[in-house]
C-alpha cells in the first residue's frame, strides 16, 4: 500500500513536553466532563425533592451543561484564553502543537486549530450523525410498513420521530459547511487558516459535546414532542426533554461560532486579487448560509432557554393560564426554522454549482445571477416563517403577506435553477459521480420546489398541513437537494481531503440505490398525504397500506445505498487509488496544493488574476 502518511511534514515536530496541552485529548475531556456532570448532579440533588419535576429537570439540565463545560476544560479548550489572561500566552512551540503539526492521527482527537483537521472531524461526526438518524428512519419506516404494526409502541415511535428529526436537522445544518466549509473553503480563498483558529476548534468540540447529551434522551424517557418541541408540550414533557433543550442550546453556540468564523475568514482573508466577483461560488453560498444562521439560530436558542426556565424554575413564558403564549414559542421556533431550511440548502446547492462548470468545462452561467439568487433566498427566508402557522389560529389577515413572501422565494430559487441549466446548456458533461448528483438535484429540487408552492398557499395548506405531503415535500428539498449536494461535494473534494479517489463503482451503485429508492420512498407519499394520511403518527388507516409499503421498500433501498456509500468512503480512505493533485482539472485554488496540504496551505501566498471558471477561455 502506498503510504499517505499524515505524520510526514517538512517542519520538525514540536514537543513542548512540559506543557499541559500535550497531555489533553478527547479521553481527558470525556473523563473531566463526566466528573463535572456527576459531581454537579449529586451536589444539586442533595436536599432537593427529586419527585418534583421542576427540581428533577433543573438538576438534569445543569448536569448536562456541566458535562459540556467539563469536556471543554478537559480537552484544553480554555488553556489559550486562560494563559492569555494571566499574561503567559502560549509559546510558538505550543501554538504549533495546538495546530496539530506532526501529530498524525492523534490530532483528530485533540483540540486542534488546523482548519483541515476540524474539517475532517466534522466529516466523520456528520457521517456518524447521519448514520444514527438514518437508522432511526429505517425504524420509522419499518413500523409504518403495515397498518397496525406492532414493531414498536406508539411512545417509542414518537421518540424515534423526534430523535430522527433533530439528529438529521443538526447533521444537515453542518453537512456541507462543517467538512467543506472548514477544510476546503479557506484554501479556496487562498487563506492560511481560518480567521479564528481556536474558535474553529471550539465550534467542533462544542458540537461534539451535544452528541452524548442528545443520546441520553433515550435513557431519560425519549423526546415525545417531535423535533419542533412545541410548547407547552415541551414544558410538560418528561426528563428526556432536558436533553433536547441542552442539545439545542449547545448547538446554537457552536453554529454562532462557526458562522462568525467563516464570515470573518471570507471577508478578511481572501488572497490578493480575489475580488468579490472572483470568489468561488461555493464560498459565496457557504458564507451566505452561515451569515444567515447568525441571526436565525439565536432565536431557537432563546426559545430553548425560555423552555428551560419554564421547566426548571416555574416561569410561564408559554403558559397561557399565567399570561404566557404558546404562539410566542411557535414564532421564535419558526423565525429560526425556515431560514434554517436555506442554511441547510444553500451550501449543498453551491457545492453543485461549483461542480457543474468543472465537469461541463464551461464558465458558470451568469455568476451574478447566482449571487442574486443566493442573496434573494437569504433575504426572503427571514420573512416567511409564519407560513408554518397558517392554521395555528393566529391573526388570519397576516397569512396573506406571508403567503406572498413565501411564493416570492421561488423567484431567486428559479434563478439558481437557471444558472445551473444555463451552465449545462450545450455542454458536454463529464459524467462522473459528482456530476450525476447535479441531475439528481435538478429533479429532486424541482419536485420539492413545486410542491412547496402549494404548501405556501393558504387554502391548500389548510388541507395539506400536518400530512405526509409535507413530509415528502421537505425530504425532497433537504435530502433530495441539500444532501445530494453534500454527497456530490464529498465525491468531488474527497481526493483533496484524503489524498485518494473515491471508489467509483461503489459510488455509482450507492447513487442509484439512493436516488431510485428516494423516489419510491417519497413520491407516493405526496398522494397518501393528499388523501389525508397524517404525519408523525405510529399507525394509519388500512386505505394507505399499499402506499406505505412502497415507501418502506424505497427506504430500504436508500439505506442500502447509503451503506454502499459508507463502504466506498471508508474503503477508499484506507486503500483507494492515490489521487493526483487536480484529478478534475478544476481551476479553483484548493487544487493547487498538494496532499497532505501543508499546515499553512500555501508555500507562497497565491495571487488571483482571473475568475475561477474560465473554462474554454484563454487564460488571462
Amino acid at each position, binding site marked *: 500500500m502506498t503510504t499517505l502518511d499524515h505524520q510526514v511534514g517538512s517542519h520538525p515536530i514540536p514537543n513542548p513536553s512540559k506543557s499541559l496541552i500535550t497531555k489533553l485529548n478527547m479521553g481527558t475531556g470525556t473523563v473531566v466532563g463526566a466528573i463535572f456532570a456527576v459531581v454537579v448532579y449529586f451536589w444539586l440533588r442533595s436536599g432537593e425533592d427529586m419527585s418534583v419535576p421542576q427540581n428533577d429537570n433543573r438538576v438534569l439540565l445543569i448536569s448536562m451543561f456541566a458535562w459540556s463545560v467539563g469536556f471543554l476544560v478537559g480537552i484544553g479548550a480554555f488553556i489559550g484564553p486562560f494563559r492569555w489572561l494571566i499574561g503567559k500566552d502560549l509559546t510558538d512551540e505550543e501554538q504549533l502543537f495546538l495546530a496539530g503539526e506532526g501529530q498524525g492521527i492523534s490530532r483528530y482527537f485533540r483540540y486542534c486549530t488546523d482548519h483541515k483537521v476540524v474539517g475532517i472531524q466534522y466529516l466523520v461526526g456528520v457521517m456518524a450523525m447521519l448514520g444514527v438518524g438514518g437508522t432511526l428512519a429505517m425504524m420509522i419506516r419499518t413500523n409504518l410498513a403495515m397498518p397496525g404494526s406492532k414493531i414498536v409502541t406508539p*411512545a417509542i415511535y414518537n421518540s424515534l420521530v423526534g430523535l430522527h428529526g433533530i439528529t438529521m436537522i443538526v447533521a444537515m445544518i453542518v453537512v456541507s459547511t462543517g467538512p467543506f466549509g472548514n477544510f476546503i473553503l479557506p484554501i479556496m480563498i487562498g487563506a492560511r487558516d481560518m480567521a479564528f483558529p481556536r474558535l474553529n476548534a471550539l465550534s467542533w468540540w462544542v458540537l461534539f459535546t451535544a452528541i452524548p447529551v442528545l443520546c441520553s434522551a433515550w435513557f431519560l424517557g425519549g423526546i415525545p414532542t417531535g423535533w419542533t418541541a412545541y410548547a407547552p408540550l415541551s414544558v410538560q*414533557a418528561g426528563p428526556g426533554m432536558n436533553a433536547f433543550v441542552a442539545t439545542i442550546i449547545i448547538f446554537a453556540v457552536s453554529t454562532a461560532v462557526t458562522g462568525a468564523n467563516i464570515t470573518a475568514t471570507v471577508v478578511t482573508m481572501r488572497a490578493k486579487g480575489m475580488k468579490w466577483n472572483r470568489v468561488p461560488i461555493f464560498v459565496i453560498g457557504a458564507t451566505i448560509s452561515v451569515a444567515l444562521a447568525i441571526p436565525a439560530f439565536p432565536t431557537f436558542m432563546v426559545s430553548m432557554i425560555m423552555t428551560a426556565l419554564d421547566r426548571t424554575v416555574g416561569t410561564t413564558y408559554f403558559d397561557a393560564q399565567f399570561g404566557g403564549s404558546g404562539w410566542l414559542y411557535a414564532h421564535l421556533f419558526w423565525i429560526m426554522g425556515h431560514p434554517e431550511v436555506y442554511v441547510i440548502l444553500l451550501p449543498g446547492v453551491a457545492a453543485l454549482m461549483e461542480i457543474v462548470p468543472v465537469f461541463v468545462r464551461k464558465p458558470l452561467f451568469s455568476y451574478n445571477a447566482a449571487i442574486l439568487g443566493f442573496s434573494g433566498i437569504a433575504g426572503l427566508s427571514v420573512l416567511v416563517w409564519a407560513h408554518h402557522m397558517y392554521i395555528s389560529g393566529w391573526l388570519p389577515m397576516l397569512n396573506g403577506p406571508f403567503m406572498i413572501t413565501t411564493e416570492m422565494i421561488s423567484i431567486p430559487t428559479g434563478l439558481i435553477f437557471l444558472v445551473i441549466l444555463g451552465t449545462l446548456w450545450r455542454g458536454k458533461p463529464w459524467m462522473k459521480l459528482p456530476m450525476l448528483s447535479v441531475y439528481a438535484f435538478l429533479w429532486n429540487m424541482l419536485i420539492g420546489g413545486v410542491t412547496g408552492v402549494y404548501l405556501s398557499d393558504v387554502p391548500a395548506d389548510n388541507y395539506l398541513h400536518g400530512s405526509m405531503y409535507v413530509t415528502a415535500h421537505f425530504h425532497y428539498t433537504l435530502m433530495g437537494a441539500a444532501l445530494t449536494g453534500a454527497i456530490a461535494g464529498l465525491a468531488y473534494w474527497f481526493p483533496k481531503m484524503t489524498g485518494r479517489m473515491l471508489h467509483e463503482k461503489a459510488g455509482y451503485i450507492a447513487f442509484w440505490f439512493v436516488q431510485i429508492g428516494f423516489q419510491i420512498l417519497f413520491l407516493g407519499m405526496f398522494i397518501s398525504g393528499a388523501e389525508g394520511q397524517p404525519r408523525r403518527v405510529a399507525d394509519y388507516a388500512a386505505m394507505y397500506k399499499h402506499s406505505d409499503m412502497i415507501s418502506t421498500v424505497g427506504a430500504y433501498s436508500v439505506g442500502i445505498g447509503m451503506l454502499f456509500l459508507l*463502504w466506498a468512503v471508508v474503503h477508499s480512505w484506507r486503500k483507494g487509488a492515490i489521487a493526483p493533485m*487536480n484529478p478534475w482539472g478544476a481551476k479553483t485554488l484548493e487544487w493547487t496544493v498538494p496532499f497532505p496540504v501543508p499546515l499553512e496551505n500555501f508555500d507562497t501566498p*497565491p495571487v488571483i488574476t482571473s475568475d475561477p471558471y474560465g473554462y474554454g477561455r484563454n487564460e488571462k
Partner: protein
Amino acid sequence: MTSTSTAAPGSPSTNSEAKRNGLAGAIAFVLVGVLVVAGVGFGLHKLSADPQKPLYATLATDTVTVNGENLHKASVTMGVYPDQASAAEHGSKANAKDWVQYGPSSHLVLPQHTLVTMTLHVYDSGEKLNNAFFGKVIGTVGGTITVDGKDVSSVPADEVQHTFTLHGLPTSSQDPLFVNVPLLRVTTDDKDNFLPTKDPATDFKGHTIVFSFVTGGKGEYVWNCEYPCGDGTYQKFGAVMGAVGYMTGKVTVA
C-alpha cells in the same frame, strides 16, 4: 486564477491496490450494516414487548339471547389499584412504578361474538372530568352499569375517578366496538382498606361496578382512562395516562 498543476481530466491515477478490493467487500459491508440496523430494530421491538401476561375472560357454557342473537357468555374481573404493592397483591407483577393502575393485566383477551360481563373493583377519589361526555355510559347492554348493585346510566363529571373507555384502532375493517364506563369515585382515597375481593356491602370501602357488552368479530382494540389522572404533565394526561399497563392497555378479541 493562479496557474494550477492539472492532470488531464479523466485520468486520475490508479494503482493495483484499489482494483484488488472489488465489490465483494462492499456487499459484505452492506450486509453487516443491514444486520446492525436490524439488530437495533429487534432491540426496540423487544423494548416494546408487553411485559404483562394477558388476562383471559372466563367463558361460560351457557348462552344468552341479546337483541335476538344467541350469544355465549364470558366474564372478566379487574381492579383499579392504588400502587404497585396493592396491584402485586392481586396478581399484577409487571409494573414498576407506584402509579395508580388497572390490573391484574392491562391486556384483555375476549372471545368473539360473546356477551362479556366485566366487574371492576375501584377505590380511588377524583376531581373532575375535562370532558363531560365521558361521564355517560355508552356501549353496554341496556346502556347502563351497576354501581354497588344500583343501575346508573351516567356519572356526574365531578364524581368520576377513572373511566374504562374501549375503542377501535383506525387500521382495518374490523367490527366497531366502543364502550365507555365512568367509574364512580369514593369520597376520599381508601387504599388502606382496599380489599376488592371482599363483599362491598360489608367490608369493601370502594365500589364494585358491573357491566356487559357484546364483542364482534376478531380484532385489536385499545382501552384507556379518559379521566386525566396523571402527574401534572400534559395537563394530567402525561405519565400514568400514557403508559401502557397503568391507565391504558389493549383488548384482543380472538
